């Protein structure tokens, strides 16, 4: 994985929610999309993604349904209204966090 584990740890939920905001997807697609969007820097393992999806579903942010319209019986996930609110909330928090770090880093780097 390109990014360090610690950086990613806090934001995986956010990433998964963002991808689902693009539309309903199944696990394999989500992994692909993550890879694309991060230009190969985020390569999640299936064993990491599915627990996240299940946890998000248990929390009500996401709902799943089995569908075989693609020719194969698959489990599709999509954001719920609660999930949309969670995404907005998390995104705001993340931007605030990011600004805070930037505010600290910029002057710090100048001194190096």
């Amino acid at each position, binding site marked *: 994985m390109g990014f360090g*584990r610690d950086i*990613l*740890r806090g934001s*995986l939920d956010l990433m998964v929610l963002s991808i689902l905001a693009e539309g309903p997807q*199944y*696990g*394999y697609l989500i992994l692909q999309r993550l890879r694309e969007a991060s230009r190969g820097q985020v390569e999640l*393992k*299936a*064993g*990491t993604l*599915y*627990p*996240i999806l*299940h*946890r998000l579903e*248990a929390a009500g942010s996401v709902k799943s349904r089995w569908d075989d319209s693609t020719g*194969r*019986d*698959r*489990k599709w996930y999509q954001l719920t209204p609660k999930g949309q609110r969670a995404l907005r909330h998390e995104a705001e928090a993340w931007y605030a966090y990011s600004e805070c770090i930037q505010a600290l880093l910029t002057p710090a780097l100048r001194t190096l």
Partner: protein
Amino acid sequence: MSEQDFEHWLRLLGRMLRLSETQRSEIRRELLDHLETQLEHWMSQGLSREEAITRALDEFGDAAALAHDLSQLNVRRKWIMRSTMGIGIAAVMALMVSLLVPGTNDQAQMAIGNDPQPGTRPAYTEASTVATLMDEAITLRHDHRYTEALEVLNKVLARDADHTRARWMADDLTFVLSAVHGLKNPEEDAATAQVRDQLNQTLSSIQFPEGTIFSEALEYLRESTGLNIVVNWVELEISGIERDAKVSMNLKDTKLSKVLDLVLQAVGAGEFELGYFVDEGVVIISTRKYLDRRTITRVYDIRDLLTSELDHGRKATLERLFRGVAAGMPGGSTDRIEQEWNSLVKEIVAMLKRQSGEEVAMMIQQTIFTNIRPGNGGSPRPGNGGPGGPGIGGPGGTAFYIDGQLVVRHTHQVHEEIVELLHRLRLSR
């Protein structure tokens, strides 16, 4: 690594998931779909199926860790990890240890940081009791005393509701027991089922001193076991077997069914072999000749052997297998060679695991039912025994396979053979 390994991994995962049956099967379904999509992708890039599966297993990671993560949703105790990405190495090790070594589950729980509830006994004593019980359960299971094993496991779970290995074994045994019971003819009543259980029990000592006669031996068995035993004396006397035929034996720790077999063997011989069948709670003893003529029809529901989320190929194999069985069944049966039978079943089970479907179907047709020798009626005659439909009938026997049901009209002996085969096939899964 091979397909077999993935199946094994999936089974392992399934067993470790502390979720409801529905949730477990959904997860398996989802992971399997993911795997297959993944495999298609890699294979389209030139990897062999084997290589692709190895990569896939790497992708999925350690089954124990994944099971832990997926089961989090239902864990009651305090050691819920907040982060799904990092499981402490210690926690994984503790989990693995608790899974591999019976009885250490409590230590493992402590290592992960679980505080014992106030007022319980200290962990060490508890662990050793649990360990002893687990040993007992394993021994019982080994002796095919499934119901007793399950009782002991329930004791373990009463002391430690999250004892993973006890849970696995209990689930497994419940499945085995229901599979075995499921094989009984749906019309078979509770009384007959009870008799079967009685026949399975072990007698610690049986002594028939020199001079004991057949009817005395039977009377003794009736009194000491409570079994209803009825003898078809007319048939026996026609075959020259008298009530005062001599029986003597001195046995220890033998199953009742075996004792009965031995008594009947001592009394009848060769052409006038004796046998028995169970009907409405009664054990009926008669001559082989009579038994072989007497056929009953049973329907075996084998859909559970045919359904497999994992492998459509295996389902097709098993369907072909049973069609083959139905088609290849000769008529009548007399003796069966125990060793050959055992090794045959082992081979079949091994083949099913390797999923070489064609071989299995052919093998069944060629060997399994030719081991059952033609009865006193002579060599099998086509279509003689009963209703039409696909199947070779010998004297009094037909079978056909339709929609997951194996319909067999045959002698008791053949039915027992089928019951045993299905039982072992189910155990092997």
